């Protein structure tokens, strides 16, 4: 019972955050005039297209201009450009919520549409796939290494791990990616330079999977090296702290075997704070996605974001900022669910 209620409350507060972000974003866009720019761009596109179309039908230049002018006026009122931005705001917010994100100016999806929703939807799985793989590897690594090292603080492995964590925290993901490409793709030539599949991709499903795995190696290695350091260190610190608690001594006093004490009394109790730190570090995963995909040309939404920035495609940038926030909020919610399941102390009565 406490579980359900807690989760509902958490879910609502995260939704609240999402709305805040949305409103803030829209307000910023409106107040700084960016939305005016976007709509003006859309307006001139439409007017131009209309003019071209009409030019084939109406030959009299004066009549043509008249018709275009009329069309333009109609468009201005329908786009809401004649009103100040805060009147437009609610409809914009609604459009974003319902994921009617408009069209991208500079990018088209693989299937040829330039609706933003399509573009995002077909690239999202690539990013999710990459990040989930990294998450799983990181989780296993931190459990294995972090716990092992915590049982022998001060040992050689422990100090090595501390140094590794320090270095990996300081390592810029994107630079590491470049180095790995330089070494493994340029010099040693065993991994590809980037991308998700070879061109052309193999048709046989087995070879396709293998091709994917081959392309996955460098990006995953980059992200794991860059992100596992802090995980492992946090796991180690928390486990060491928990291992000094009285109930651990009590568990040993009860004659429980050391392995059981380790997992049920130390790791299980350390899990909530480790999860908390994970939640806090989740932002780094998003950051890592954007930067790594850029360097590896991995066709996910991170690379999309980078391209949108480079080509100043405002509508796309706005839409992607929102999508990233959405993903972040969802991921946090999932983690908070896990947290509440794992730690009975935070449940509401």
């Amino acid at each position: 019972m406490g579980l359900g209620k807690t989760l509902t409350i958490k879910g609502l507060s995260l939704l609240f955050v999402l709305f805040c972000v949305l409103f803030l974003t829209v307000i910023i866009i409106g107040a700084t005039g960016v939305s005016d720019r976007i709509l003006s761009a859309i307006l001139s596109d439409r007017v131009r297209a209309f003019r071209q179309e009409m030019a084939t039908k109406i030959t009299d230049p004066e009549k043509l201009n008249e018709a275009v002018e009329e069309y333009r006026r109609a468009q201005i009122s329908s786009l809401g450009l004649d009103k100040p931005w805060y009147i437009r705001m609610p409809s914009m917010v609604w459009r974003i919520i319902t994921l009617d994100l408009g069209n991208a100016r500079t990018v088209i999806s693989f299937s040829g549409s330039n609706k933003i929703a399509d573009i995002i939807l077909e690239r999202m799985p690539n990013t999710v796939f990459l990040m989930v793989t990294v998450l799983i590897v990181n989780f296993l690594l931190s459990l294995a290494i972090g716990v092992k090292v915590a049982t022998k603080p001060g040992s050689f492995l422990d100090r090595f791990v501390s140094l590794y964590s320090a270095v990996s925290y300081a390592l810029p993901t994107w630079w590491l990616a470049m180095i790995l490409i330089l070494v493994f793709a340029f010099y040693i030539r065993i991994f590809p330079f980037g991308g998700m599949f070879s061109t052309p991709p193999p048709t046989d499903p087995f070879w396709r999977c293998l091709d994917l795995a081959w392309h996955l190696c460098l990006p995953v290695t980059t992200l794991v090296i860059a992100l596992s350091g802090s995980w492992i260190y946090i796991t180690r610190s928390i486990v060491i702290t928990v291992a000094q608690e009285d109930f651990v001594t009590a568990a040993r006093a009860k004659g429980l075997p050391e392995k059981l004490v380790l997992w049920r009394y130390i790791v299980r109790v350390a899990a909530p704070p480790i999860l908390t730190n994970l939640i806090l570090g989740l932002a780094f995963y998003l950051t890592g996605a954007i930067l790594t995909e850029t360097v590896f040309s991995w066709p996910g939404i991170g690379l999309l974001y980078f391209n949108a920035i480079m080509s100043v495609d405002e509508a796309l940038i706005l839409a992607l900022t929102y999508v990233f926030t959405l993903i972040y909020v969802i991921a946090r919610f999932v983690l908070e669910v896990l947290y509440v399941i794992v730690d009975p102390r935070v449940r509401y009565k």
Partner: protein
Amino acid sequence: MSSYLKESWAEFWAGGISKLGVIFLLTVVVISIYTLLNFPLDYGTRYWNNPKYWADNPKASMPVWVNLFTAQKFLNHFSMSTRIPSKAFLSGGHYLKFYNVSYELTVNQFPTFITIKLEDVVYYRKAPSVKVIVQRPDGRVMELYTLIVESPVPGEKPPYVRYSDEPKKIILSGNTYVAMVLSKFLAREYKISVAPSDIMDVGYEAVIFGYPGDDGKFKPLKGIYNLSVVLYAKDGKDKIGRVTFVVGGQVYGLMGTDTLGRDLAQGLLFGFPVALLIGFTTSFLTTLIGASLGIVGGYMGGKIDDLIQRVSDVVNNLPQLPLLIFLTFIFGGKLWIIVAVLIAFGWPNLVIVVRSMILQIKSSPFVEAAVSIGASKWRIMARHIFPQVAPYILSQMIFYTPSAILSEAALSFLGLGDPSIPTWGQILEYGFDNGAVYLGYWWWILPPGLLIVFSAVTFVLIALGLEPVVNPRLRRWR
């Protein structure tokens, strides 16, 4: 109190990690001071982003010390000026002044280009002419180029000064007149005929600095060359202010160059103080705001606390990079905006932890005692609560510094940085955009990243060293 400090210092200094961190930090600070003393503050806009300043450098060339490790040696870049003629005499009605430098070709490579720059040509009567002459180690002489200085303009009075604001650049490679000279040279000296239009295929430098081998290919002629510019003047006072000879090499400088010819060593040096500045400012302000709000919220409780908590909750739930990108994109990539945004995202983290520490301390007996004596809220916060959380706050501040450095580097890499200041992230951005990764320009890619890592690791090491002081449970002995 002082024994606590002494003990803390002992604990801190005990680990090798801390010692390493402090050594690194000192290195960074010393280099930063050196840079600030030796470079102007507007270095970015005045020099770094000014392509003309780098025009004479070889493009995308490796550092000089590469030669220590390779069997096949690379050619050093050469640039030398002279202001004083080595000899001057009267001959055939002209005053001849010889400006020359001596150039030694020591490796088996051809120079990549050769240019001559003339500055501040002064004449009193008739416009002089200038000849470029190369004397090779094998004794052969080439008269490569003749330039006639611009005559006086009507209304102009002597002394006539030319090429003062804008030096005159003579580029030999690709010049048709030079091609003819070289073609004749080859026919006369080696009895081989190469048409002037084909000189480009053979390579101007190959002809000037080489000789045809038995297999028909040109080989570099090693030895000492005498490069001279001869001024044929009508007045004995005529002179050239400065003559600069640039013979392009394949390696240059301490850290090589990028595709614009920029000396990477300078750009990298400038990155030190910038990194320190960004790191410290951001982390200091973030910590200040976060800790203050945490203390105030934790101690005051009630509505203030609630408000602070709500706000930090919302901010904490925001994904940093996408919003950072978004805001930088809207407001422009100025350095202070980046710092401001980083601070805006960073403070909630500290608030949460500090607040929970405060809550524990608040209910401790000595705080109660202070309250019962009648101490004011602010006094209690400052005198009793703050010293308890100070070590943790300090360690957090140090730990946050590398994060700020890394964030700025990431933003620069994405092209959102401040273009007027060279930073390591920017250097890497330029490299990546120009395909340095795929072309194997390791000297461009490795050092900036290593420096980012180095400066970030410095702070992380210190923060790690501080951890046992702050969290007694992590100390060596219980």
